[in-house]
């Protein structure tokens, strides 16, 4: 990534977050927009930021809780970087079928 490119982009990005099933219910939220520093925006960093809100957030997003995270509708590992406009979804392990 060239320094020129970095300088031209804004220093923060905005992602849309969706919550499903038990997470939506216990967090009391289905959708929100969150601003993140562009340089340090990853799936793992977003989870850490949300967990720091306290209460149900800290409990549901604790590191020992099984939480699936999808970026633009594909399952993503903590290291996946986030870009402006991404759709990020948090949900518990799936139980269909």
């Amino acid at each position, binding site marked *: 990534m060239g320094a020129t490119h970095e300088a031209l982009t804004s220093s923060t990005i905005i992602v849309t977050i969706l919550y*499903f*099933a038990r997470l939506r219910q216990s967090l009391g939220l289905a959708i929100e927009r969150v601003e993140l520093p562009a340089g340090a925006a990853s799936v793992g960093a977003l989870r850490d930021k949300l967990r720091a809100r306290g209460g149900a957030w800290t409990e549901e997003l604790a590191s020992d809780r099984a939480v699936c995270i*999808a970026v633009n509708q594909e399952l993503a590992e903590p290291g996946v970087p986030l870009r402006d406009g991404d759709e990020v*979804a948090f*949900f518990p392990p*799936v139980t269909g079928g």
Partner: protein
Amino acid sequence: MDEIRVQHDDFDAGREIARLRGTNPRIGAIASFIGVVRDVNEGDSVAALALEHYPGMTEKALAKIVAEARSRWNVIDTLVIHRVGTLMPTEQIVLVVVTSAHRREAFAACEFLMDYLKTRAPFWKKECTPEGERWVEARASDDAAAARWREQA
């Protein structure tokens, strides 16, 4: 042909199978699976099931699962219908149909599609029990069933 449908309405497996069978004289085998709502889970009676999903991702995840099945077996058609919304005991939840020239491919691909659907497609069940509503927890046995196919890959 591959077809994926997520819908509130019930389905008629006989009609779906007849439709697929009528399209291609190369079909020699048809395997199907239907999942149904039980009235008991984890020892508690279940009065109803609420099924939710992640519109958009659900269809993409199912398409990936179907593509993976096609990379493993020589199948002719796949059909996946999954219902969402409120379902009562004895109601149908999911239908998977696979057609192929011979039975082995149809059986294997049908079981694979169900095992992967249960662990990779973003659907969630909430049960209505006498003690109130509760989200169904993912089962380790479902993960183990899906993992078997990775060993065979």
